[in-house]
């Protein structure tokens, strides 16, 4: 057990930090063109998809190097790259399950953000219970015909391609009739509507499919094998890069400490109030534990171990902690934490942010409520931890009871 960074890692961090200091854009990126240019710059510097094998456009970078880049990006307040979910989900899916042709066609353009991707999984009636999805993909000759609706799709309004889960066999048990398809988002019959969130911003979309035709060659893996494919890639999303999430919380709390030197509570700076100090000490300690736990995950990855169901512990940890962090910030700042327009600069997270834009205390507060819902709610994560990490027996559930009754005849069980 040795928690020092190696000399090599320290040198790498210095190089990343220096590059970012020189290259991070000074102005906010507004247009998609500007964002793509910045993304390309990051890619050329070797910071995008860097963990991938060189043959797929990566750098064979170690998990630690990826983590360092993630952390330093946050520290430098660098705009994030594009295609985040694409890199996290689509590429592993293609690498593990795609055809050689699919890999060649899609991976590089995704990495360079020449093509933008979205993930078409959730539906209005298939959230936590993703396997109950109803969006249909019916084979018609050499094409699939897609009909249905998807929701909570990040960035669908900008996407060129989407990774779709759709039902290809309506007679099979629900997990066994799903396939995974690559869909051209410019196809006729696709309608994208932006969903406004409680933050006032519109990151998510609804996507409607009406007789959308997708060539059969865009099937990923076997027909009706989509559920297994999605399961393996979902755990990547859940594992996430917790160290950069830590870095983001740290950035906010560090700013909070500055603000507490200025903000007056009961006639003295908030930082001198024993109750405020206690809260700050508590939350800082909790964040440090997230850092330690992240280093532990990272060191397992460095040893070549894959993120398994334990990644649910990480997801549960950072998403629930983020809620506590954001609640605490509002506790300390009182009404100032809820103010967007007109907030004095010395009290702001980022001055001059408007309602619905990232950068206000309010925006961070509201988004923390989504973290325990998307990518598997906290309740789902606790089920996974209980059943797959602790080995507790599965819960008795209506769909399992039905499936068992049906399965008894066939001699198999439900998921």
């Amino acid at each position, binding site marked *: 057990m040795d928690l020092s960074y190696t000399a090599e890692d320290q040198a790498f961090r210095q190089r990343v930090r220096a590059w970012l200091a020189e290259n991070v854009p000074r102005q906010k990126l507004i247009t998609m063109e500007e964002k793509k240019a910045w993304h390309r710059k990051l890619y050329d510097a070797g910071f995008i998809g860097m963990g991938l094998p060189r043959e797929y456009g990566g750098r064979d970078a170690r998990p630690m190097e990826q983590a360092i880049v993630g952390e330093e990006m946050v520290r430098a307040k660098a705009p994030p790259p594009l295609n985040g979910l694409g890199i996290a989900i689509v590429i592993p899916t293609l690498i593990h399950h795609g055809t050689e042709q699919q890999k060649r066609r899609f991976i590089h353009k995704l990495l360079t953000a020449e093509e933008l991707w979205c993930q078409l999984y959730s539906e209005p009636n298939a959230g936590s219970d993703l396997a109950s999805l109803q969006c249909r993909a019916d084979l018609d000759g050499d094409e699939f015909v897609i009909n249905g609706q998807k929701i909570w799709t990040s960035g669908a309004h900008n996407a060129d391609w989407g990774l779709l889960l759709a039902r290809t066999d309506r007679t099979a048990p629900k997990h066994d009739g799903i396939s995974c398809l690559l869909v051209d988002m410019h196809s006729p019959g696709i309608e994208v509507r932006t969903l406004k969130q409680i933050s006032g911003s519109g990151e998510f979309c609804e996507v409607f499919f009406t007789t959308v035709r997708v060539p059969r060659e865009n099937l990923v893996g076997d027909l009706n094998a989509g559920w297994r494919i999605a399961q393996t890639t979902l755990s990547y999303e859940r594992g996430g890069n917790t160290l950069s999430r830590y870095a983001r919380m740290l950035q906010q709390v560090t700013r909070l400490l500055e603000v507490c030197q200025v903000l007056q509570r009961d006639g003295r700076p908030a930082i001198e109030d024993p109750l405020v100090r206690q809260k700050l000490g508590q939350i800082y300690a909790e964040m440090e534990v997230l850092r330690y736990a992240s280093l532990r995950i990272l060191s397992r990855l460095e040893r070549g171990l894959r993120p398994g169901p334990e990644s649910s512990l990480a997801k549960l940890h950072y998403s629930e902690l983020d809620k506590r962090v954001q609640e605490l910030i509002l506790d300390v700042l009182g*009404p100032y934490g*809820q103010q967007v327009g007109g907030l004095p600069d010395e009290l702001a997270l980022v001055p001059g942010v408007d309602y619905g834009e990232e950068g206000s205390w309010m925006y961070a507060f509201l988004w923390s409520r989504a973290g325990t819902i998307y990518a598997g*709610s906290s309740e789902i994560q606790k089920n996974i931890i209980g059943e797959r990490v602790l080995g507790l027996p599965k819960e008795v559930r209506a*769909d399992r009871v039905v499936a068992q009754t049906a399965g008894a005849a066939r001699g198999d069980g439900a998921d």
Partner: protein
Amino acid sequence: MDFEFTEDQVMLRGLVREFLSEQCPVSHVRAMMDDSRGYDRDLYRRLIQLGMLPFPEAYGGAGLGMIEQAIVLEEMGRIPYPGPYFATVILAGGALMASGDRRTQARYLPDVSNGDLTMSLAFLEGGIAWGPETIRLSLRRDRDGYRLDGIKRFVPFGQSVDVILVVARAGEGRSAEGISLVAVPAGTPGLAIEPELMMDLTSKTATLRFEGVSVPAENLVGPEGGAWPAVELALRQAAVGASAEMLGAARKALEMSVDYAKVRKQFGQYIGQFQAIKHKLAEMLELVENAHAAVYYAAWALDARAPDAALAASVAKSTVNVAGRRVCGEAIQVHGGIGFTWEYDLHLYFKRAKHLEPLYGDTEYHRERVLQEVLAGRVAGSA
């Protein structure tokens, strides 16, 4: 000993609920979110004219008590009603009544009671504090009247009410002595009003800057330098009133969650069948019922001038602060993604409860106050 509402109180609740559900649908609430004044004057006037005001009948009120105000405010929290009822009736009206200044009461309350006049109370300044110590806005004699200089923040509907009662300090120091109350009409020269854009778009607030604002001597409310007791009582009533509003928001969020858990299916069953959801909802109910007990006990204690009225007010606000946060937060969790959308109404309650949480004393402030009252022996049955 009777903790149940009287028939009159049940009728009042029904009256307000019916009025608001008919006259103030969520489409109106959402329209007001984008409105710079934040409320509809005509709707406000009709609401006031329902006849539920706490002022004496001589001033056009109904002489109702804090219990009735809590009933009204709980209903408003369920909408959530966008407008300066709380600012006018509870904050400013409460301060006027507590001031004992009959001349000023007679000057303003009749117009308030027929809905022609809206008011607010300006208290907070640069920081966060609910005692007299940090009031710095200065009040100085100036020929025939007074001159005001300083800043006020988070003035409820400060951008759209007619008259603002300003808590100011005559002289130096940090003590309660010197605290004065002055009525300043909107539009007085030297008064700059900047709207603050708050998370809860249904609750407008403003920053008010006073630079050499002159008002005539008759605008002083109560004795110069002696207004603190009135302000303190108004803030205490406001804490209970805000708690009632938060209670309404929390109960509505709970009801929406229970309804949703009964119709939403995942994994082949209603999500309300899962213990994770069922137990969460049970805990939310307990929080809401305890909040109800705390709010109405405190309202009764204020009306009855019970020895533990201050204690009960602080118990109520600290209890409902926690309940509001937890119930509305868990309501989003129970709903999942849909609860995170702008179109679904849940966030209106979540934000209203959060808006009121730090105002009129946050949780820590009121817990400290609870202990002070206990150590001073001002508990139930002590008088």
